[in-house]
């Protein structure tokens, strides 16, 4: 005990991986599950079989050695379809998160630095926030007629307001800090101030926000596909699979629960990663409302 008390303050030491895993288990559990799913989705053609091949002789057969997740009402292999469905969910999650964070960053930085832009943009965001996400997405899809790009845009637009608000609040907070004042006094141009002094402060909160946007986008895509307003029904997605199997719940529950569980596990993993990152990157960021 005495040795420890007398020892000079230890130099800051980088913690090993084992320590980090023990301190932030959710980051590694969530990240691990996501990595595994990405791997499975990428390697799908190597092992999953054909997700579109129909076999009327083997309709609605329960899970077996030949069909791990059973078959659906057209005799298609539910395992292959679930694996290929992961590709769509992951793609949509990543694209929407990237787009919404990029868009939120651009608009939020602008709004945080220009009073005039701020007034117009924030009113518009208030209006967008008041329209429930799925309804706005449905309207966009109905008006612009299906297609994967339209679906991505329709999921992205309702996500924007929260990201814009987040960036704007960071900018407004940082703008009053002495180091920004010093940069202004030193004659730095607005562009440089934004890039060098304000942008870095947004990285931690936006990384966390990106995971939440990703989780939400995956859920909304599944919801839209389930309602028939999402990815065209010929493409195997988890939402499409569940929508197509609605009538067979009583006799072939695996056709609904296999994609359903995959969906829940992926979203849970992304949310866990987000919660863990939030605690890791900034303990003061507070609990998500």
């Amino acid at each position, binding site marked *: 005990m005495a040795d420890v008390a007398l020892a000079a303050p230890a130099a800051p030491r980088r913690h090993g991986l084992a320590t980090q895993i023990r301190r932030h288990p959710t980051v590694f559990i969530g990240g691990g599950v996501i990595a595994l799913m990405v791997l499975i989705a990428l390697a799908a053609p190597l092992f999953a079989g054909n997700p579109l091949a129909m076999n009327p002789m083997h309709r609605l057969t329960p899970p077996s050695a030949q069909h791990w997740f059973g078959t659906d009402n057209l005799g298609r292999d539910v395992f292959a379809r679930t694996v290929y469905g992961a590709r769509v969910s992951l793609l949509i999650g990543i694209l929407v998160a990237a787009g919404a964070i990029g868009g939120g960053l651009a608009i939020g930085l602008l709004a945080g630095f220009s009073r005039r832009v701020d007034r117009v943009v924030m*009113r*518009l965001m*208030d*209006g*967008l*926030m*008041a*329209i*429930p*996400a*799925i*309804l*706005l997405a*449905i*309207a*966009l*899809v*109905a*008006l*612009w*007629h299906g297609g994967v790009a339209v679906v991505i845009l329709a999921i992205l637009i309702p996500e924007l307001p929260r990201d814009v608000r987040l960036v704007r609040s960071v900018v407004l907070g940082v703008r009053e800090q002495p180091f920004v004042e010093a940069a202004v006094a030193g004659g730095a141009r607005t562009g440089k101030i934004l890039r060098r002094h304000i942008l870095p402060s947004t990285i931690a909160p936006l990384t966390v926000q990106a995971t939440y946007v990703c*989780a939400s986008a995956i*859920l909304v895509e*599944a*919801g839209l596909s*389930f*309602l*028939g*307003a999402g990815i065209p029904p010929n493409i195997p997605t988890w939402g499409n699979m*569940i929508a197509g199997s609605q009538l067979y*719940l*009583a006799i072939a*529950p695996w056709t*609904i*629960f296999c994609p*359903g*569980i995959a*969906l*829940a596990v992926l*979203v*849970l993993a992304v*949310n*866990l990663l987000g*919660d863990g990152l939030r605690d890791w990157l900034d303990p003061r960021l*507070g*609990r*998500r*409302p």
Partner: protein
Amino acid sequence: MGVYIAGRLASTFVVMAIVGLIVFLLLHLAPGSPAAIIAGDNATPAQITAINHQLGLDRPLPVQFLVWAGQVLRGNFGTSIFSGEPVMRLILQRLPATLSLSLVTIAFAGTIAVIGGVLAAWRAGGVLDRILMGVAALGFSVPVFVVGYLLIYLFAITLHWLPVQGYMPLRRGFWPWFSHLILPALSLGLAYLALIARITRASVLEVLAEDYMRTARAKGATPASQLFHHALRNAGVPIATVIGIGVALLISGVVLTETVFNIPGVGRLTVDAITNRDYPIIQGIMVIFAGAYVVVNLLVDLSYSLIDPRIRR
């Protein structure tokens, strides 16, 4: 206080005006002319010209917006492409089912979330806390329709305790009405419950560290009085805020839940409108749901002064 209410009402009006503008522009900025969209996929050019004239689509955009907004304020959302009936009448027909589902969900999820959140904060790190926060993590992650089918499979198909799908109006008796709403409300409420429980736990946890909580303990207040009288009251404002914000989550969930449980409500009307590309209906529902969201949040803001009298000054 009067000034505060007036200001809050004015900002509500502004938000609704912007919602109207967004809904209006969505139609007018979409590819293809609004008349072609309103006329539906199988319209002839003559029909489109007629609609153009009838709806005044040849007039300048700002004029069109004002005319449309004036009609909306009087409750006229146009007529459905598919059935030809006024959109407002179609929505009103479906409203009782949706209101029943929403109110039962808010009552059940709100009660469990607030009581659970308070108890979880009281014994933070304990068994109840872990269970509730686990349920909350699931509630954010498992989609409404997956929970819905799971509940149907367990409680309706396997155990035969509750009806599989459908809706019974309240005038057919309380139990038939209520029994058809139990499973839908459970599936719809899970995410809402998760949201409120998390914020309740966090706010109460913060309040429990205050000096006046130690005073309450010292003067011998019972645990129930400490938690629900002292702690919950002081943690009330963020909880009320999230109950209001969560309504957006609830509305998106209603559309999915009504589809899973085959409930003839406004959400189901929306889904049928997608299939028929019945844009006037989608437009009307967007305005009404956004209106509901904005009004609920206005009421929540006004309730702050009831929860915390300091806000009245």
